[in-house]
């Protein structure tokens, strides 16, 4: 059963009179529980593809299915609710909300989903402990290191048991040791919770963690490798 189906998707950005073909007809499928890397040189379309799968942007052509439901052509508010309930995002620059503590950041997603308060706080505590932030639940982002902030982002992404977690270069701003720790943790979440992960990266070390590597080049799938 496929978690993600991308069918003949292209994305063209218009910059003035120049059209940039960020994606030029990409097709791929990702099964449930995969731990999958998107590789490729800068400008190859990794971010664009992740944004399309995550419903943050809409393709110029082609169709995308998430959990067998087509998400292309949905309204902004339907997409927002799909993002809230089915997708977890982790970004390169730890995009967590600076005015909320680690626990509040994690709880906020559940609050928007309508999870009752007690369950929220229990689940938030559990997942923060799980990503290795025991004892730091009440710290604000400014009081956490980059690696710790990215762990909060992972906790926020997986706490609502999404169908899929999309991570755009999650380790790019971390030193290799911290990055490795984060990836090990993500791999563990993938195994223990059976969460599907797709992440993009330039980094060889990061690719080594993946069970499957999809290489993009000039907006096309150039090479696939399954371990």
């Amino acid at each position, binding site marked *: 059963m496929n978690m993600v189906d991308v069918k003949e998707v292209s994305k063209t950005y218009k910059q003035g009179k120049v059209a940039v073909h960020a994606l030029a007809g990409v097709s791929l499928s990702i099964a449930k529980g995969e731990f999958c890397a998107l590789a490729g040189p800068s400008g190859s379309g990794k971010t664009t593809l992740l*944004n399309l799968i*995550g419903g*943050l*942007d809409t393709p110029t052509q082609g169709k995308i299915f998430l959990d067998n439901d087509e998400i292309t052509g949905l309204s*902004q*508010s339907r997409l*927002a*609710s799909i*993002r*809230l*309930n089915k*997708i*977890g*995002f982790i*970004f390169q620059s730890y*995009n*967590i*909300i*600076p*005015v*909320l503590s680690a626990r*509040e950041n994690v*709880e*906020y*997603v559940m*609050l*928007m989903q309508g999870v009752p308060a007690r369950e929220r706080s229990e689940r938030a505590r559990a997942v923060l402990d799980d990503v290795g932030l025991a004892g730091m639940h009440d710290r604000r982002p400014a009081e956490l290191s980059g690696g710790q902030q990215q762990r909060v982002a992972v906790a*926020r992404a997986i706490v609502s048991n999404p169908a899929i977690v999309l991570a755009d270069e999650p380790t790019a701003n971390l030193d290799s040791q911290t990055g490795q720790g984060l990836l090990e943790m993500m791999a563990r979440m993938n195994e223990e919770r059976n969460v599907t992960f797709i992440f993009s990266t330039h980094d060889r070390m990061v690719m080594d963690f993946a069970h499957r590597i999809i290489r993009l080049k000039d907006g096309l799938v150039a090479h696939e490798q399954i371990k």
Partner: protein
Amino acid sequence: MEILMAWRNVWRNPRRTILTILAIAFACLVLIFMLSVQVGTYEVMINASVKTRTGHIQVIKKGYNKDHKIRQVVSDPESIAKILDQTPHVTAHTFRANAFALLSSDLRTCAGLITGVDPERESKISNIVHTMRKGRFLKPSDTNTAVLGALLAKNLKVNVGDEVVALGSAMDGSVAATVLKVAGIFSSGMDDYDRSAIQIPLPHFQEVFYMENAVHEVVVTCDSLWHVSRVKESLAAALHPKPPAEPTGQDADQGLVCLSWDELTPGLIQSIQMDLGGGLIFYAILLVMVAFSIMNTFVMAVFERTRELGTLLAIGAGPGRLSKMLVLESAFLTLWGITLGILAGCVLTFWFQHTGIPLGGAEGMLKQYGIPGLIRPRLTLATALSGPALVFIITTLTALYPALKVRRLTPVDAMRAV
């Protein structure tokens, strides 16, 4: 949680927040204070005019205020006085009669307005008594005695103790003439009044001008400006149910009208309206400045957080949630500012309402003219709340702009922003 986030967001930039709150508070304070000063000043102006000239209300023959014809009289003033004695909020009343006359001293002749007044009752209503420059005011025992305006005295070149001959036409059309002895000279501060006014005891006036018991004006003062319209209504009601006198009564109390100070001196209301208009321009400028300062705060708050708002959108927050958060943020600032402003404005205004604002060097002169040397702002519910209400409306409208703008934000664009 949105409330919590909004609250924390507000304090992310404490300096900007405090400045914005102070700007809002300052605008409220200035509006409250200025409006109260204006209202207080108008009260002083109105009172000065009311005290020297018109009184709060006059009962006159219809049309007399436009054209002072000597025949347009109130023929039975005592009956009106009886009504007034029983009307609440009336503090005093008196009768006056007026006639234009030629005034001659030994050296000069000029035209003037002779007013017959009841010395005792007049002193309770008019502050001419308190603006005597030389000599004394009229006494009940006086007969052919007069007090006159300083400018008139100067024109006639007369002084206390001198004689003035008055020549006019009486009510029946015959010639009215009398010799008056100057007992005092007053200076009301209103030049055109001081240039023409001469006052004599009413009984002597009625005798000279063949008025019998008739007068021209029944002058009424009330305990407060705010009660004038009420008194006027009840007085008019008491006057008019009387069926018009039968033809036998000739020109009895037919066609009497009851006019308030603003109808008697339309010029005063006009100048108040002009002053208010000038104030409005100032207030508008103030409000625009406040609006810009708030606009700046709110636009900056959205602009510098675009990435963060993008993240919120990406993780599934609807635009409504973001708008709500931004509206809450602006509500915090606005309510704090307005509360602070109302408190400070009321305290300041109240303080000056007690101590008064001295008018500087002009004080002594003004006192002589019967205008108090202090202006006291008058804090009322209207002056305390109308300014802040305006500020509230303006800030709310201003804050709505970024809150609505955020609805057009798409997550990808927002997160690409620096």
